[in-house]
């Protein structure tokens, strides 16, 4: 178990390095020049050179990266090119929003995905068909489209939930939950279908195994065979893909934060991308990288927790 965690943490180092290095390397490859873009067409040559120096762009890529990395390790992610605000103080208040969505998505996806998967493996018939249809809809609807439809139905027509905006948990817990329901469901749509499909295949596999027959032969009740023995074994392959599913859901979160006008990391990153604010984008990239690492770590831990072979090795 410890070995698993160690491997994952060791793997996360190159992951974070690569993710954060990408923008520096790209920057040096890019035909357009950041300082020129910020200054616009009117900037003089002196202004341009001064800005290049100020941004550190006149140094080599590796030195730029090393200095960013050194500062980052010291807890300093630099300042926004546009507003001069510290990047860290821009990121931190937004982390809560994105984390709330991601945790909600994970809970919803795992519980509903497993439930639907088991039901469709057992019943086949109309439940299986319904889940097939759900999967089709999940497939054809990108998260931002689902989000818009949800707004149309639940906010505009039924007026059950707010269409956009975020309420702080500390101000109004109920309002906080209401502001997150639609975003979480929009992001979860596709992952639920994915997990349900995977669970169904896993259950069909496990239910054919010898030990299920042996459990039946010793009179263990069918309910316990399905929900305890079969599901536990079928959940193992599901968990191995849960990491992929959840890292994929990060993309969904970025889109959906935009639709619901939520002040999360995703919308910050999108704004920064539009305004060429590389420093902010770089910080957001690091945070998302850390989020991906955390997701994979949680997935590894729950895999070990469920699988005695890993736990005890």
């Amino acid at each position, binding site marked *: 178990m410890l070995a698993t965690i160690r491997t994952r943490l060791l793997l996360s180092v190159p992951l974070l390095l*690569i993710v954060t290095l990408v923008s520096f390397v790209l920057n040096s490859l890019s035909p357009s020049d950041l300082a020129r873009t910020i200054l616009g067409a009117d900037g003089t040559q002196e202004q341009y050179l001064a800005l290049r120096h100020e941004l550190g762009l006149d140094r080599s890529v590796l030195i730029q990266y090393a200095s960013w990395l050194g500062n980052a390790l010291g807890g300093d992610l630099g300042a926004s090119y546009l507003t001069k605000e510290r990047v860290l103080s821009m990121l931190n208040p937004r982390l809560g929003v994105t984390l709330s969505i991601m945790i909600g998505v994970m809970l919803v996806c795992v519980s509903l995905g497993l439930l639907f998967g088991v039901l469709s493996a057992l019943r086949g018939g109309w439940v299986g068909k319904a889940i097939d249809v759900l999967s089709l809809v999940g497939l054809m609807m*990108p998260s931002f489209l689902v989000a818009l439809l949800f707004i149309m139905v639940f906010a505009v027509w039924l007026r059950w939930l707010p269409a956009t905006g975020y309420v702080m948990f500390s101000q109004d817990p109920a309002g906080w939950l209401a502001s997150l329901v639609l975003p979480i469901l929009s992001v979860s749509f596709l992952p639920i279908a994915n997990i*349900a499909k995977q669970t169904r295949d896993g259950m069909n596999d496990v239910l054919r195994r010898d030990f299920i027959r042996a459990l039946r032969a010793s009179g263990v009740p069918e309910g316990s065979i399905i929900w305890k*023995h079969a599901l536990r074994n079928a959940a193992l392959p599901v968990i191995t893909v849960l990491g992929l599913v959840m890292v994929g859901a990060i993309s969904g979160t970025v889109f959906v934060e935009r639709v619901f006008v939520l002040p999360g990391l995703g919308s910050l990153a999108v704004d920064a991308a539009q305004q060429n604010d590389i420093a902010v984008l770089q910080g957001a990239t690091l945070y998302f990288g850390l989020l991906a690492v955390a997701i994979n770590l949680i997935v590894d831990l729950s895999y070990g927790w469920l699988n005695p072979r890993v736990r005890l090795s």
Partner: protein
Amino acid sequence: MTELPSPIAGLSALETLRTPKALPKPAGFLARLFGRPLALLAVIWIAIVVVGGLFAGQISSYDPLDQDLLAIKQLPSAEHLLGTDALGRDVLSRLLHGTTPSLVGVVQALAVVSLIGVLLGLSAGYFGGWWDRLVVQYVSLLQAIPVIVVLLSVLSIFGQSMSAAMVTLGILGSAGVSRVVRSVVLGVREELYIAAARISGLGDARIILTHILPRIFGPVVVQLALFACITVVIQTGINFLGLGVPPPAPSWGGMVFEASASINDFPWLLLPTGSVLALTILSFGLLGDSLRDTAVETWAAAAHRHTLQARAPEPIMDAPADTVLALRDLTIVSGQGENARILVDHVNLDLADAETLGIVGESGSGKTLTVLSMLGLLPAGTRMTSGRMSLDGKTIDLCNQGQLEALRGGTMGMIFQEPMAALDPCFTVGHHLAEVIRRHKRGSRTDIERQIIALLHQVRIANPEDVARRYPHQISGGMAQRVGIARALAAEPRILLADEPTTALDVTVQAEILELLRALSASRNMAVVIVTHDWGVVADLCDRAMVLYQGRALETASVVDLFEKPSHPYTAALLKANPHGAKPGEPLPTIEETLRSIQVGAG
């Protein structure tokens, strides 16, 4: 790749890993692919989109940028077939012109994905070694990267260049493709003809070109179709965020965003773009799915519940006086109609109190099915067409699952051929036993624990407290079979069914398990049915034995009679084929050859 492929495909990458088969011959393949209505519809829709995008200017006479502020937010009319948007621009024209960026994006990403993915996967799988390990690490690294975040950087740095974003998407997505390619190549490489080709001096390049590339073609096409699906999602998503294609130029994602701005007062606007977008994504997904299904062509057997006519079974009157269990007319078949095969053919069986009965036969003779039918545990795909059972004189309906379930564990315990596979890997030995004890008896927690220890002690496990805490992977096969026996005995059944209980074990362990079974059946006064193909087991353990051949019971007799004067020539042949009687230096006797010699002798 972090965004997953289609949900209907589930995790296509993983599934393809499980069935790394090449597509069959092209001609029949295409015919079968288009035989699927959904695949045909998907291809037709994609064709419509491509044509619409290529001839956008010819199809719609409106300029996609032309504003008409006198005709804003109009519903469909003869003039504007799909209505107009908030600036009075023609929706159809924008939709058609917006197709190009999406399609170009798909083509760019697909080109990169297939090039890098195939090269990496092929070289890693074919050459193996350190390169393979490196590629595998690289792939798992790429798959842990959140795609959209990297794309945002790329877009920002490369001045919102969609091409740069799509190439990046292709690089990130190549992880999934190379993973699939690698697994297929690994499978092919192990096949004999590749080794033969190598030995005969064929170069690597020739082997890859002629033997391996054709095999990875199918799985790669499937992956590409599913990847196209993701590309459309990401590409439109980027435009939706206001990146990539700059407004007011038309793009599908941008149009969805425009629609979202007027979702309160003019919801119609979402419909045309939303449905075109959804249908296109769906078509790529369906196409990928159909490609794979056509390639794999798995026959998903719907588990038919075998239902015999629901009349009460006739009681069995002709069983001897001390019979515990009697079986009459048991017939089990597989398949339907012309493909039906009879697996067990009108078998009768009587088991006396405290008797040990052997069922002997070659593999496929129906001996295991006979035993499983007594518990109602026939495998999917087989069904019973006739059969009656009585237990202690009480008639049991073999088709009544409820009635049979009540017998499992408490009246009849069963042990299996593969002791390890019969245990759930996720639970401890103690848990397995506790579950059965709780089901059949009452008792406090400590009481159940005491019973577990006692049971393990009875099956001669030296350190029961320790073993009870272990998981199946922590015990040996012999110990697993002892646990299996303990579980079968947990509820003190009157009858023990043993399906080749020693076949999968080492010879020394076999003897111990047989000795244990003999001692337990004697001490518990328990009737035993033991399925075996080993005459040694029969001689050791059984009072009587039944010989099965191709589902028919040829003879049933006491063991002494069977060994000394077998009444059926097959029994004699089977006895002769016992390897224990073979002479050193001579070929082992086989059943075919002894049967033949008997037939020759008889004829």
